[in-house]
Every structure is written in C-alpha cells, then in structure tokens.
C-alpha cells in the first residue's frame, strides 16, 4: 500500500471519530503535523476494576498500515497482565499474522488490515475488563491477578487514583 494511502486512511478515521465519537475513549493526533502518531484517552470501563480511571495511550502507526498493525503504549501507569511495565500493549490483534512463531494464536485473532483505531480500542477496552494470562506482558501482574485478587484490586485502584489526579 502506498504511503499516501495509509495517510488518507488515518485521516479518514480521524475525521470520522471527530464527527461520531465512540463511547469509552477519545482520540486525536499527538502532533497535528504527524498523522501516524495518535493520542487516545481511555475511560476505565464501567463495572471493572479500572472504572473511573483516565488512561492515556499513544498509537504509533507504521507507514505500511493497514498491512501492519500499530503499536500501542500506555502513557498512564496501568497495572494489567497484558500491558508491559513500559506501557506497551500486548494483545493478539496487534500481532502480525504468522504461521510458525506463535502457534497458539489463531490467524483470526491476529492483526487484520480491516482493523481501525476504533476496533483496536474496543479490543483493548475489553482486555481491560477481561485479562488473558496465557501470554502475559507483565508477569507480576498476571501472577497477582491469578493468585491474589485482593492485592490485584489494590494495585489497580492505586493506578486509577493516580490517573484521576493527573486530570484534576
């Protein structure tokens, strides 16, 4: 896909999200000059431990988007089995399809070129509610989530409070 096409595709999504905002997050460019770097604000989903939090993240798109997935990195501290300590989100739909490397993920769970900012964020929001500890990016968080739910609750509550302070 030509570079102008990835630019136009992202521009189109930005216009669409501005016109029809989607519940659960807001999205914009990190820098008005750069269509490939987005900043999103995710609202902690209701009825989850993350409820009430405001989590800022960056989406960094490659020039080959949508053939290749973007990277997503939380800027707000967040304690979750599928988010590495540096904030990188590790979910299967952000992984390129491969027939050999990660046999445990079906092709259908991998990146597809029809994914948009909206579908990615919908997946990330559902991941917040429903961690997957089969391939944790934060091993400590996965262990605590599995073995000590009360402690996990506490650690998440701390992140939620901190995230709220940042927006006051």
């Amino acid at each position, binding site marked *: 896909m030509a570079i102008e096409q990835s630019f136009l595709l992202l521009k189109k999504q930005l216009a669409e999200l501005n016109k029809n905002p989607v519940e659960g997050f807001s999205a914009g460019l990190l820098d008005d000059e750069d269509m490939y770097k987005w900043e999103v604000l995710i609202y902690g989903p209701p009825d989850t431990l993350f409820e009430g939090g405001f989590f800022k993240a960056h989406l960094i798109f490659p020039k080959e988007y*949508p053939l290749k997935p973007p*990277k997503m990195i939380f800027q707000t501290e967040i304690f979750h089995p599928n988010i590495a300590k540096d904030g990188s989100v590790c979910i299967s739909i952000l992984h390129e399809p491969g027939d050999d490397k990660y046999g445990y993920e079906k092709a259908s769970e991998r990146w597809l070129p029809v994914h948009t900012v909206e579908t990615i964020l919908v997946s990330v929001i559902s991941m917040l509610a429903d961690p997957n500890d089969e391939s944790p990016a934060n091993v400590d968080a996965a262990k605590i989530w599995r073995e000590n739910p009360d402690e996990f609750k506490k650690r998440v509550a701390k992140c939620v409070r901190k995230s709220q302070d940042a927006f006051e």
Partner: protein
Amino acid sequence: MGNCLKAQSADDISLLRGSETQDGNDQALGPPPPYQERVAPRAPIYYPSPNVSRPANLLTEDEQVKIAKRLGLIVHLPCGVYDGCSKKGKECAICMCDFVMGESLRFLPCMHTYHKDCIDDWLMRSFTCPSCMEPVDAALLTSYETS
C-alpha cells in the same frame, strides 16, 4: 512471554513491486506473475512468513518455493474492473475507499471484494480474507483451480 512486536525485522517497503528489476536469483521464482506491472525504485522485499522479510536474493530455497506458490495461487483468484455494479460491494474494507469505475478489483471465494492492489499485498502476508477470516486457499483449490 515475549510475543510482542519487539524484534520485528525491518521491512519498510511495499511487497513484490517490480521483481523484474532485481539482480538476484529471481529465475528460481519462475516468470513474474502478470499482475506485477509496476516497476519499483528499490529491490523487492519478500515475506517468506509474515514476521520475516528479506531481499529476494537472500531467501532460502524453501522460502522461494513458498512465495512462488503463493504468487501462483493469487493469480488464480478472479479479478476484474469495477463497472458500477453494487452487487460486488461498493467499498474496499482495507483502504475504506469507495470503488471507482474502472478500478481493478479482486474477488475472493468468500464473495468479498477488494481493490486488487490492496488485497494482493495482504494475501502475500496472510492467505485469509480480512473481512470474514475465511482461508483463501481451501476454497481456491476446489473452485478456482481451472478459472
């Protein structure tokens, strides 16, 4: 477990453009398929598997065979030109653009339609329909072998 995209190989150019310009051992790939009409300014990068990319002259024999097979399958998928007929769909789900009269389209066995350029690049990475995740090869071998 490290299944994040940390150690990606650098593959920053489009697939398969202009393999006729390379000076490597492209003979092993057979004649260039008919849809490669454009000439790229740079040597092509091939994707023996989606997480691996290499210039054509560094591919192993197995990888060359795999790519040649994939190319051979893709050219058997029916294609055509958009004639304004809405039965074939109106929009390409990859670039999210409406089809314009005269544009080249590719029809997948699952009945999903895309721009030829948009879907061919994807099929070299993954042989599945991006909209319904239907594997393209199974259906292809049974219904399009002779088309």
